[in-house]
């Protein structure tokens, strides 16, 4: 195994790092959801509602990826739902930016 193999093959260390990254990402998404809810309650700024939903979807997306990594969940349904989540997150941020209210 040469030095590059550690990054290109599924070694236990890579799998561990992957799991840690998903968990850290999910925790950050949870913090951002709480922060957006707090900001919305303080200001009633409606565009924050888009951010709350976007962060929520992102959290679900990361958590699902983590689960999929631990328990194989590969099916046709997830092949559509997971990319749809990514698109929805981008659409929600776009709406938060362009929405006048």
């Amino acid at each position, binding site marked *: 195994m040469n030095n590059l193999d550690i990054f290109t093959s599924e070694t236990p260390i890579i799998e561990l790092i992957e799991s840690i990254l998903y968990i850290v990402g999910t925790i950050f998404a949870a913090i951002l959801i709480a*922060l*957006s809810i*707090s*900001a919305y*309650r*303080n*200001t009633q*700024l409606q*565009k*924050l509602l888009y*951010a709350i939903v976007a962060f929520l979807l992102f959290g679900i997306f990361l958590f699902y990826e983590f689960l999929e990594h631990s328990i194989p969940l590969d099916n046709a349904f997830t092949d559509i739902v997971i990319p749809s989540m990514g698109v929805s997150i981008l659409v929600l941020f776009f709406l*938060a*930016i*362009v*929405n*006048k209210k």
Partner: protein
Amino acid sequence: MRKTSLNSNKYRILRFIQNNPGCYLRQIRNELDISMGSVQYHSYQLQKVGKITSTRQGLYKLHFQSGTFQDHEKTLLQVLNQETPREIILLIIEQGNPTQTDVVKRLGISAPSINWHVRRLIDLNLIDEVRDGKYKRYKLRDDSIDSKYIEELLKTHHPNLWNKWSNRLVETFLSLSNEDKQLL
């Protein structure tokens, strides 16, 4: 014996709320070194008999002595717990009648964000917008609110880290949307 101790805690909590209007439960617990259960119980009892009132702001429930604080003063305390509106009010106290441009320059955040916060302060009846030629100037709405009184409140009421972060999230969205570029 237990009853005396509980009454004493109730009195201490009431005194603390009188001296620190807008305080929240965790603050009372930390300052008076009383258990959270006891603080919750006594604050509930004090509210029940009408000695104190409370209002929710974000994650915190702010407590006030009944009758002392009018609605606009409660609003003022809520605003002082948020970073940007607090700094705008401070600037108005310091400069008297700053223009919108002064506020933008001093706070160093985007014009749309400042505009949004200023409009909100006007809606809350805390500040007034006055036309001065081509400039818009701001002043405190209620002249009966003494700037020294606000300064006293500012010493005890400041945004915590969580409120600062949530405020910055709001500013990020306001800056991205760039709602209103007018700056006069």
